[in-house]
């Protein structure tokens, strides 16, 4: 009988023993497999579409990239495009069947009854086979005010051929009619809206007349020599342009599409490998325990003449068998998951075609196998060191105490980590922060057993007063401190990352929002769409709205100010000057006067501008008012910076005394403290509705965008890291199953002397809870600690304690513990008390 046979039978005979390892490897490899399959599925769909959509293109002309142009370095489009006339010139080249120009720009699509505008790209199209779009229904736009829309966006917002909608571009909103629905290649959607417009709308939506064509695509007649035609095209295009073959263009577009998929794949893979590392801890734990339990079996093998090398091989072969089964299952599960996702999620259906590359599957299986076999290395070595004489001993595998050296090293590492973290935080030294975090994590692994043992001994008294079952549980945790710590470590890593990302990400979010809120003091702003400005009656009505505290009127721009400043200049025409009542600005917008006194005859200038221009209090500056009247004013006060008002403010009386009444173009509103924001806002909108051309703008819109973005990011990362926590759960389950197998006699004994099944279950549950709580608390403390230290440096101390998330994490720890104990506790309760005597 070969070693492989022995290994295979061992695994088959004790599936429960390998349960944790199997589950851990299956979950981690499933994750890896779905990451790779998703990447390949996206890349396949995207690249084949790029190729299909550009299938008829034989030659492409683009502006030459100037290697000295800094924008080229950032991969930005060349700022100047191709001359408008070049399309006809290329079309006239001998051998060219037809040519079209491409021009595009970002737009927003606003649909009635749909709250948020939809982001998209406007493309100028002409009816030509070269156009990458195909029509599903209707026709291509041929006149101004007509668009074709991709079918998916149309379906999502519920509009069809013949409907009207609004497209907002750099030139403002425009009413358009949908005349057709398009597809791109075989693909219906590209993740954003495709707004196809006619040549006549090119300037309005893409700035075509100003910027020229970004690319010209051409087809070559059959029978013509492509190389000859391309060189003729190059002659026409001149040195400012470069000419590509159709294949080059398709390769490049396919590469770009694959790049998008790759970037996503790399991110997912990073998490998948993290899951594998957590799994490795569990595998190591499993094999260490199994090897200890099988001392006598190994000793017998040794006594019968098996070499220590053969024993080592036997353990490794077991690891190989387990990991092979689990990795194959994981690879398959990943494919099934992605397949289901593509089937069930419509958005994904348009973007991905299920693609299973053998190489990706090989990567999954290899990763699973390598991680498992490497994790079993030390246990295998320990097994091989079993001495034959141990076969004769009737002793239970004794547990060696934690060595003093390990305890000291562990505690020293932890202490050093804390010191490095604190020093790095105070001294703002990133290297110390990183080093400190690493030291802490290594310290947890080395010093974990010492800490677990210490905690267990402290808990023994209090828990012992609760019940004997709890006391025995805590004593077992202490006895197996090493194993408990290793089990908990899987959880520590997962929880640490979740908490760190949540706390640090949350801190960055709150910091950003705080900064934004400081900059915008008002709650809501109203602006006038007409040159007459906001009517005085409207302003009076606005002040009367329930919940409105104060309204600041700003005559947005009443003139300009020329200042000589070092550094970058503001675009020509000088600084905008506004007219307002400064006390209103202070009250509503929180504009701060940092220096000097507000004087009705003087100017309030933003401090940063004054510094840059070398202007101080008491200096006289020259303003040119809107009607050309010059006005010299003294700078009497310097202010902080605000987004909402121009950097130079004159009092309204001075301006109006000089050039007569000026329209109030905008007003900022501040609500009463404690006012219901929704009610107040509804009131403001109701008043605005009564007056034509008055728009209400949320001052905090950008804040809500930032908040939404960060929250999405945090929950996405949290969900991905949650996989690590799930694997850790299997780790606890696994350790308990092993521990129960190891303690069969002990459990039987306790049952015979009167431990009830529910007491036994409680004992197992307490062990699981202690393990999961130790892991969760350690992970949470590390996560918050490191996040706090990092926040101190990066965000200058702005740190929101994530109490809420910490609470959830702790509850999670308890839930994980209870869940992990259900199956082992049931197994233990089913044990026959007679076991204690039978094996005796």
């Amino acid at each position, binding site marked *: 009988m070969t070693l492989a046979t022995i290994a295979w039978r061992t695994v088959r005979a004790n599936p429960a023993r390998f349960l944790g390892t199997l589950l851990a490897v299956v979950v981690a490899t499933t994750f890896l497999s779905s990451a790779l399959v998703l990447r390949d599925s996206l890349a396949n769909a995207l690249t084949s579409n790029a190729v299909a959509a550009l299938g008829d293109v034989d030659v492409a002309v683009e502006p030459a990239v100037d290697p000295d142009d800094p924008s080229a370095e950032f991969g930005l489009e060349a700022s100047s495009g191709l001359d408008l006339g070049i399309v006809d010139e290329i079309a006239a080249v001998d051998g060219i069947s037809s040519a079209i120009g491409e021009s595009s720009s970002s737009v927003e699509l606003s649909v009635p009854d749909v709250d948020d505008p939809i982001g998209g790209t406007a493309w100028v199209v002409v009816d030509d086979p070269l156009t990458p779009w195909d029509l599903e229904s209707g026709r291509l736009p041929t006149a101004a005010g007509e668009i074709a829309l991709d079918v998916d966006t149309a379906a999502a917002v519920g509009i069809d051929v013949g409907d009207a909608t609004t497209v907002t571009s750099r030139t403002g909103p425009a009413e358009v009619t949908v005349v057709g629905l398009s597809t791109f290649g075989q693909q219906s959607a590209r993740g954003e809206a495709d707004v196809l417009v006619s040549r006549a709308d090119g300037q309005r939506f893409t700035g075509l007349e100003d910027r020229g064509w970004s690319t010209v695509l051409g087809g070559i007649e059959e029978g013509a020599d492509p190389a000859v035609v391309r060189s003729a095209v190059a002659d026409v295009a001149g040195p400012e342009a470069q000419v590509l073959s159709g294949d080059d263009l398709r390769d490049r577009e396919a590469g770009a599409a694959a790049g998008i998929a790759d970037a996503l794949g790399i991110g997912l893979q990073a998490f998948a490998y993290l899951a594998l590392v957590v799994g490795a801890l569990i595998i190591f734990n499993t094999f260490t325990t199994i090897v200890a339990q099988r001392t006598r079996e190994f000793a017998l093998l040794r006594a019968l003449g098996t070499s220590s090398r053969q024993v080592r091989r036997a353990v490794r072969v077991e690891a190989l068998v387990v990991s092979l089964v689990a990795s194959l299952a994981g690879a398959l599960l990943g494919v099934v998951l992605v397949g289901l996702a593509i089937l069930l999620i419509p958005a994904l259906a348009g973007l991905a075609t299920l693609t299973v590359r053998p190489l990706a599957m090989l990567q999954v299986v290899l990763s699973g196998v390598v991680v498992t076999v490497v994790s079993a290395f030390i246990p295998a070595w320990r097994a091989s060191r079993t001495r034959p004489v141990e076969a004769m001993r009737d002793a239970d595998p004794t547990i060696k105490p934690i060595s003093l050296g390990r305890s000291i090293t562990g505690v020293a590492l932890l202490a050093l980590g804390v010191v490095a973290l604190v020093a790095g935080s105070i001294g703002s030294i990133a290297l110390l922060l990183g080093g400190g975090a690493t030291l802490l994590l290594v310290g947890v692994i080395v010093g974990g057993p010492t800490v677990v043992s210490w905690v267990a001994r402290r808990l023994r008294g209090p828990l012992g007063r609760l019940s004997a079952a709890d006391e025995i549980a805590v004593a077992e945790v*202490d006895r197996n401190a090493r194993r408990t710590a290793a089990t908990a470590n899987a959880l520590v890593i997962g929880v640490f990352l979740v908490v760190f990302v949540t706390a640090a990400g949350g801190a960055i979010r709150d910091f950003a929002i705080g900064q934004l809120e400081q900059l915008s003091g008002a709650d809501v702003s109203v602006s006038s769409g007409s040159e007459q400005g906001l009517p005085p009656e409207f302003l009076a009505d606005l002040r009367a709205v329930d919940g409105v505290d104060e309204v600041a009127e700003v005559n947005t721009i009443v003139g300009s100010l020329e200042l000589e400043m070092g550094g970058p200049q503001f675009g020509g025409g000088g600084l905008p000057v506004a007219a307002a009542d400064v006390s209103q600005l202070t009250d509503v917008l929180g504009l701060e006067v940092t220096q000097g006194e507000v004087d009705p005859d003087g100017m309030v200038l933003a401090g940063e501008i004054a510094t840059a221009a070398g202007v101080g209090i008491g200096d006289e500056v020259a303003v040119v008012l809107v009607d050309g009247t010059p006005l010299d004013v003294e700078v009497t006060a310097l202010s902080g910076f605000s987004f909402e008002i121009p950097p130079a403010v004159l009092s309204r009386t001075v301006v109006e005394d000089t050039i007569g009444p000026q329209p109030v173009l905008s007003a900022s509103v501040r609500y009463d403290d404690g006012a219901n924001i929704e009610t107040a806002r509804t009131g403001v909108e109701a008043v605005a509705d009564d007056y034509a051309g008055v728009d209400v703008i949320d001052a905090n819109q950008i804040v809500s965008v930032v908040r939404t973005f960060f929250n999405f990011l945090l929950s996405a990362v949290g969900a991905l890291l949650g996989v690590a926590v799930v694997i850790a759960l299997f780790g606890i389950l696994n350790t308990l199953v092993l521990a129960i197998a190891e303690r069969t006699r002990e459990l039987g*004994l*306790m049952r*015979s002397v009167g431990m009830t099944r*529910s*007491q036994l279950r409680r004992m197992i549950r307490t062990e699981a809870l202690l393990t999961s709580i130790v892991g969760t608390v350690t992970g949470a403390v590390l996560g918050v600690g490191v996040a706090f230290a990092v926040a101190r440096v990066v965000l200058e101390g702005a740190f929101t304690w994530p109490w809420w998330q910490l609470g959830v994490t702790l509850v999670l720890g308890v839930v994980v513990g209870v869940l992990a104990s259900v199956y082992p506790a049931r197994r233990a309760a089913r044990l026959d008390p007679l076991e204690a*005597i039978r094996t005796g």
Partner: protein
Amino acid sequence: MSQTEIAQPDPETAGYAARAYDLTKVYGTGDSAVTAVDDVTIGLERGVFTAIMGPSGSGKSTLMHCIAGLDTPTTGRVFIGDVEITGLADKALTRLRRDRLGFVFQAFNLVPVLTARENLVLPARLAGTEPDQAWVDELVDVLGMGDRLDHRPTELSGGQQQRVAVGRALMTRPDLVLADEPTGNLDSASSESIMGFLSDAVSRLGQSVAMVTHDPWAASYASRVVFLRDGAVVGELADPTTETVLDRMKQLGAG
């Protein structure tokens, strides 16, 4: 005394710590079925040290496990005091073991993570009651373990471990102490101390003890020996000595 005289439980049940009627235990089914205990009726008197003897495979351990409620008989009834335990649910049975029975096994008697003293009071702790401190002190005194009581089992000798086990069995003042080869793993000096300890519990404290053994010397400490062979009671001996037990074993082995 006649070798065929077999003890029948007295109709007056108060005198028995445990009784079994028509007890049969069959392991397995069909061709592989093995009758470990074959229609045994036996009573264990209160305040008496009873030894159950027999060769390996005679069913003596199975009989004891059935009486202890650790194993379920195939047919027949078992009483502890006047409580019938056959048919009891696991929870009630566990409580009964905890409160009314004491156990001494051949080996692995103690929970490794608890000290000797903690092991001693474990049944009371499991019951959630305060152990009777005076009784604990008295037992500790009799055990003669002194400062060794705060050590873990792994730090105690085999004899010391067994003494703690006997102490634990006596701790709840059970109706019956069941001992399964309590000296099986011990040297002769330790064996002597354990056996002295068990017979003292009977003679001084009026404790009822039933012990399974195959050692004639250990059986000689009992006041009554019941012999088993092939699952059936085949003889009985009162006030045995090592020699009389050996003689009877020879007779039974020959017959």
